[in-house]
């Protein structure tokens, strides 16, 4: 794969141009979130010291600064509070229609989660509709592993999709 204008980048991976998170354990301490996502689980971190649930997940508790955290499951279904649909001029990397919604998953801190809605044609979604977690593959990236050489790190990401009635 050639890079126009910059032939020296042929076949190289520029992390600075990657629209997705670098999820691999070697580069990200919240890698369990992405591993759980691969199992179809939507999770975040809860503090074992003070009980605070934070979203997105993190490596310290933002409330008491404890590092003693555990991953807990969040609801995977919720209701659309409000949504927007972009049909034309959708940015590179996303398909038309690009739909965003504020979704109520029914528990703190995800009563107003801002997420993308996928698998939904334009003009169909309504306020109050039920949506559910949708996990999909995103491109794997080459990670250098010393003597083991370069491995391809598989990745997934998530959005929400309408629940079929």
């Amino acid at each position, binding site marked *: 794969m050639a890079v126009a204008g910059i032939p020296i980048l042929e076949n190289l991976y520029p992390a*600075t*141009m990657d*629209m*997705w*998170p670098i999820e691999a354990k070697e580069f990200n301490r919240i890698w369990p979130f992405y591993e759980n996502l691969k199992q179809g689980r939507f999770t975040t971190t809860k503090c074992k010291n003070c009980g605070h649930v934070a*979203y*997105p997940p993190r490596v310290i508790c933002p409330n008491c600064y404890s590092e003693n955290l555990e991953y807990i499951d969040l609801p995977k279904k919720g209701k659309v*509070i*409000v*949504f*927007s*649909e*972009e*049909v*034309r*001029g959708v*940015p*590179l*990397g*996303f398909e038309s229609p*690009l739909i*965003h919604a*504020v979704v109520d998953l029914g528990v703190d*801190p*995800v009563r*107003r*989660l*801002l*997420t*993308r809605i996928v698998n939904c044609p334009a003009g169909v979604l309504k306020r109050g509709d039920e949506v559910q977690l949708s996990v999909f593959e995103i491109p794997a990236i080459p990670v250098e592993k010393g003597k083991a050489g370069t491995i391809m790190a598989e990745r997934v*990401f998530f*959005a929400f999709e309408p629940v079929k009635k």
Partner: protein
Amino acid sequence: MARKAVILAGGQCKWGVREAHLVDLFQEAAKICLDDIPALKPKNIDGLIVASSYAGRCSFQVNTAPVVAERCGLKPTSICTRVDVLCAGGSTGIILAKGLVESGMADIIMVAGGEKLYTPQKWEVFYSELASVDHDWDGAQGMGLPPPFFALTAQEHMIHYGTKKEDLASVSVANYNYASTNPVAQMQKALTLEEAMNAPTVVPPLTLYDCCPITDGAAACIITTDEIAKKFTDRPLVYIRGTAQVCLNSVSANFPGTHLADWKHTKIAGEKAYSSAKVTPNDIKVAQTHDCFSISEVIEVEEFGFCKKGEGGQFCGSKQIEIGGKVPVNTDGGLLACGHPFGATGIRQGIEIMKQLQGRARHQVKDADIGLTHNLSGANAEHTVLIYGRTPVK
């Protein structure tokens, strides 16, 4: 006697799609800034604060301040640094400069902001915006470009307060018309309500004139103390009376309001700035609020107390933001029509307020003595307010 910070001079280069390098734009702005105050020479300037967020991505240039200093012929000895707070970078530079000159750590600081966003292939401008929000969480949800987020905001304002599309359009009309005679604005065309109402859709309910453009440009201003300023100018002094910068969230999931049209952080920033400036909303004669989208200005006039919460649509729709209205807003054209090179915007706003308070603005507000500037940055993640006045805080 206590040192009091003033904005002594300022200048903005032509904004738009510029056939120029980032450091060219900084040089243009620095020259126009010093042309505004002929007695001040580059050698008098002992500090430089550069505001630029996209230098690293779009010009492959980090550690930007020394490059800007060298190209502009500056040899700072007190401070030479860069700030990155996206849309609030310029205002942040002014806040920091105020602290530095009032404490005596610096005497005369140039605050220069600029962005070169258009690259040889246009896709990169839009793609790079994935860095403007929380990359891994909001960017990966397709929130890099802000129209969807502000479309949701506008919808919630309509749902909760009955705001109409005409109210949004009236903001675009006012700001475009202010800019129609501004030679450095990106958009210099008069706009009618009919044109604004019939413009192409971006993300409903937002249409073309509801959204600020992507802009190359730079601006620079000089922050010093009142006693030093008097040596260089006979113009009325414009004091930086009060400031606030509030950050309660970064990720959209932790938005502080009860809904997206309830901007608690904006309100807190306004109240803090009013109290540090010892003024009230009724004292504000002219304001430059962050009209990245028409809906933003509608909500800002509410949260800053120019009208009641929920009545921003009516306030803007009834021409209260125009000359002769209760608080003329974005009198040089705002972000909607001047354009929005992120780090330069707060400086552009400060320059317009300086000119208003000195009685030399293009659309002059009569007897303007107190003015406000405001930026929001990121996915509505931070709010920055400055209050300027003809007299210092007692």
